[in-house]
């Protein structure tokens, strides 16, 4: 095993300069935790955030005598992912043991797929901000199990260094994973950071559409290992890569790639050579630091898992799964954009805000696409931002939004009241119609009420009346304002205007 190189400070090269002189090549490994009911190789529940070491069986603890059995649902999910990524599904594949020692690994080997993955040779189209499409080629997608989770206690940083002891929670041990490995991604033309983030976002959206995972980045359901290498030009052989482990937000992925390109360029400029190693990304600085060296000498002593019989997914089964695949995000976006008549820019905002599902459900509940979009991308987006939550976490359903818009469309309430009602719905006071009724918020268009208010306003504002009668019709607003105030905003403004005009004889 190599020793860690002494880390001398490296001059980072400005990103734009780096990409003007070097050709970056990306390689991305994405792990997704599958949302199966039970674990990859045993019947322990696959749940998040349970009490430590409660979601376990002898097998997920690796107790002596325990044996794995493959979770058929996980295989189905892996095939679903493979098909969605345009991969070939292996007719025969098997598991292997990847051996290394670590306390979070119950058997001190990880049961994974090595030379015979379940899916291989596919591709996925990734759409960038400006609508440009980059095709990313997939080398393989294989199944494996997650490890447990170590917590290091007693140190200042929570890291292993300086800790007095460590605690291990094996609830995650054996959770099914699919790892998707790209072929080298060249020719990103200066947009490598964006391509990397957009690729992972594309996969995340596909996982959700396939219903194989909640795919929550912040929970670690989706984790990306980002490989970056530089070469002098597109014809040169691939440079030495670094692998930044477990990057789990789109922004961090972008920053990782950006930083590594600048760092590699700095190393190469200084006449050094990039070390093949794993690195860690630091949210606070936006930089990466060296982990352990990952030289070719690392030896996992892979061999076929003798406790599991090989898998041979029948072609009928694969075709059944293919036939049942849902509409995938790219196709769905194209369809919805057409159906909704949104511009590219509007559509991209909707996608970026993860509001597609919410808007579609709102439309399905009987609202126009533009109205649904306005609610979710306008008032509700503001509230979510204020509360620092995701749109889908707001205490309001698409059906309630549709109901609210329905009241507006039926002129039961106006836009201003609608916002008040929205606030009350978000406070959990009930459905819009009920709120409007119980609070008496419906628009007042009863002439007997409105006429009295108009008479009062005319009496109170002789100068405004004079202006209007003198031809300055736009001054009518100065009369409407107090009327709205007097009716707590509930007056039907159009009707009020008509009554004023009638009374003043201006038409």
């Amino acid at each position, binding site marked *: 095993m190599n020793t860690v190189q002494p880390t001398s400070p490296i001059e980072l090269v400005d990103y734009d300069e780096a990409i003007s002189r070097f050709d970056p090549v990306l390689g991305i490994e994405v792990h997704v935790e599958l949302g199966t009911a039970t674990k990859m190789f045993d019947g322990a529940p696959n749940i998040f955030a349970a009490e430590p070491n409660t979601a376990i069986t002898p097998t997920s603890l690796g107790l002596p*005598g325990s044996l794995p059995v493959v979770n058929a649902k996980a295989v189905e999910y892996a095939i679903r992912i493979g098909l969605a990524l345009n991969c070939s599904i292996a007719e025969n594949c098997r598991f292997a043991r990847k051996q290394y020692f670590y306390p979070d690994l119950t058997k001190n080997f990880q049961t994974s797929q090595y030379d015979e993955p379940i899916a291989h040779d596919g591709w996925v189209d990734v759409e960038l901000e400006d609508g440009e499409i980059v095709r990313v080629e997939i080398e393989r997608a294989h199944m494996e199990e997650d490890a447990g989770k170590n917590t290091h206690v007693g140190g200042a940083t929570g890291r292993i260094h300086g800790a007095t002891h460590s605690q291990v929670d094996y609830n995650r041990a054996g959770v099914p994973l699919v790892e998707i490995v790209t072929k080298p991604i060249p020719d990103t033309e200066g947009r490598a950071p964006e391509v990397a983030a957009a690729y992972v976002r594309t996969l995340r959206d596909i996982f959700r559409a396939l219903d194989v995972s909640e795919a929550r980045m912040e929970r670690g359901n989706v984790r990306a290992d980002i490989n970056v290498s530089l070469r002098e030009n597109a014809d040169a052989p691939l440079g030495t890569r670094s692998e930044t482990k477990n990057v789990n937000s789109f922004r961090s992925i972008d920053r990782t790639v950006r930083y590594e390109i600048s760092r590699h360029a700095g190393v190469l400029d200084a006449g050094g050579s990039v070390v093949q190693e794993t690195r860690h990304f630091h949210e606070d600085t936006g930089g990466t630091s060296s982990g352990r060296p990952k030289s070719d000498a690392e030896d996992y002593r892979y061999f076929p898992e*003798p406790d599991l019989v090989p898998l041979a997914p029948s072609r009928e089964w694969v075709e059944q799964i293919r036939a049942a695949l849902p509409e995938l995000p790219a196709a769905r976006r194209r369809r919805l954009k057409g159906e909704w008549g949104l511009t590219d820019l509007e559509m991209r905002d909707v996608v970026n805000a993860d509001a597609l599902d919410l808007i579609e459900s709102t439309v399905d509940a009987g609202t126009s696409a533009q109205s649904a979009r306005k609610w979710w991308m306008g008032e509700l987006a503001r509230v979510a931002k204020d509360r620092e939550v995701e749109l889908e976490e707001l205490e309001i359903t698409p059906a309630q939004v549709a109901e609210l818009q329905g009241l507006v469309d039926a002129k039961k309430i106006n836009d201003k009241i609608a916002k008040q009602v929205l606030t009350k719905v978000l406070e959990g006071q009930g459905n819009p119609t009920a709120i409007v009724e119980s609070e008496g918020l419906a628009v007042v268009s009863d002439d007997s009420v409105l006429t009295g208010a108009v008479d009062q306003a005319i009496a109170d504002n002789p100068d405004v009346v004079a202006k209007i009668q003198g031809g300055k019709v736009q001054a009518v607003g100065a009369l409407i304002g107090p009327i709205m105030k007097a009716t707590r905003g509930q007056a039907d403004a159009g009707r009020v205007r008509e009554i004023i005009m009638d009374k003043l004889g201006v038409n």
Partner: protein
Amino acid sequence: MSASTRTSDIIRHSAATQAAALEAGEVSSEELTRAHFGRIAAVDGELNAFLHLNQDEALTTARDVDARRAAGEELHGLAGVPIAVKDVVVTEGQPTTAGSKILQGWIPPYDATLVRALRKAGLPILGKTNMDEFAMGSSTESSAYGPTRNPWDRDRIPGGSGGGSAAAVGSYEAPLAIGTDTGGSIRQPGAVTGTVGVKPTYGSVSRYGLIAMASSLDQAGPVTRTVEDSALLHELIAGHDPHDSTSLPDPVADLTAAARSQDVKGLRIGVIEELEGEGFAPEVRARFTESLDQLERAGAEIVRVTCPNFTYALGAYYLIMPSEASSNLAKFDGMRFGLRVIPEDHPTAENVMKATRGAGFGDEVKRRILLGTYALSAGYYDAYYGSAQKVRTLVQRDFAAAFEQVDVLASPTSPTVAFRLGEKIDDPTAMYMNDIATIPANLAGTPGISVPSGLAEDGLPAGIQFLAPARADARLYRVGGALEALLEDSWGGPLLAKAPELTNGAQR
């Protein structure tokens, strides 16, 4: 058995006879179980066959069976007959050590599938039997808890790794025992203790709850005093287990009927040329030949067959087995169960693992972990593990070709009678040679049986092995049962009756 038979005698009968006595109400399971514990108390000090006794629980099971029988409940044929279980099989609430210090004091929180079957059928589990550490050995000398001694001669080994199970059955401590056979660990101890041992078809008895040595080779099976008893126990523990991916879906055949059929007319028996020559003791070969003569006289046809790749089987086995073992034993690291040794300085996770494994594993285990780690290493994988797997395929082809000509194959089970304690402990290669005849069946996944063939050198028992194609275990019982009857006729009773009485176990 006559009604006048005394309880102290009943333990010397077969499990089937004991079961019949229970059924007839001549003895209760509690009496029978107590009688076995009495025998263990009298002789196990000399033998060290048991690592752990389970008296309270066994008697509870026995009383429960007695009560159910009294209530007229229909019970399993072996209900109430005690059994001993090799300590590599996990038993909920009872210690399981696999003969290793690294698991000293470990109480498993679950039962192996086969143990569940035993409990469900109402067999009182007497205790856990001694074995070579992690089933690595051919003599039971590498147990961390001291060697087991051969009931025929206490200066001799009882075979291995299942020497404890074989000695317990051979010395009337238990009528039935469970063994595991990775390279012959049921059959070879059977041969050198004068008992019957069966390695079933790979996958026919669940491995769930067997502490793995080499997953693709391990197989649990019966150790008994008669072929019929093995058939009864085999039928009880076999069957599909959804917890074991390699478990076969097949229904269990009627093995007991095969054992009782006593009919070998027209049966073609192949004598494996490669397994009777150099290295096989003359008297062991003589008993083998006499056994074949008996079978031929009873109507079997004896055919010579050649299995040329069996010559390489031992070499392939000693690459595949340690490779898998090195991986299977990686979990013994002091983190989750068993021994944990914390070094004084730098008690990092890695150093705790090192210290625990250093203190917890014996020499033979360390030797095999090192061999296996080396054989799987990058750059050596193809030359060692890869080549060994190719030999494995060739051995399977040899079997397939041979079974086109014959119904079963035969060879001496072990090249020699039991050797003396300490004789081969410092010569691993000589030790490994003991399994030369048994290993091919493990590489091929095919079943095998060892039955006593008579007394050879020094008046010690020898065994004959029969092998059948995968899933054709019934053939083994047919030929084994027939031979046993023929030989017992010529001996005037079971071979075990010729064993010298143990010094302190005077009550005969």
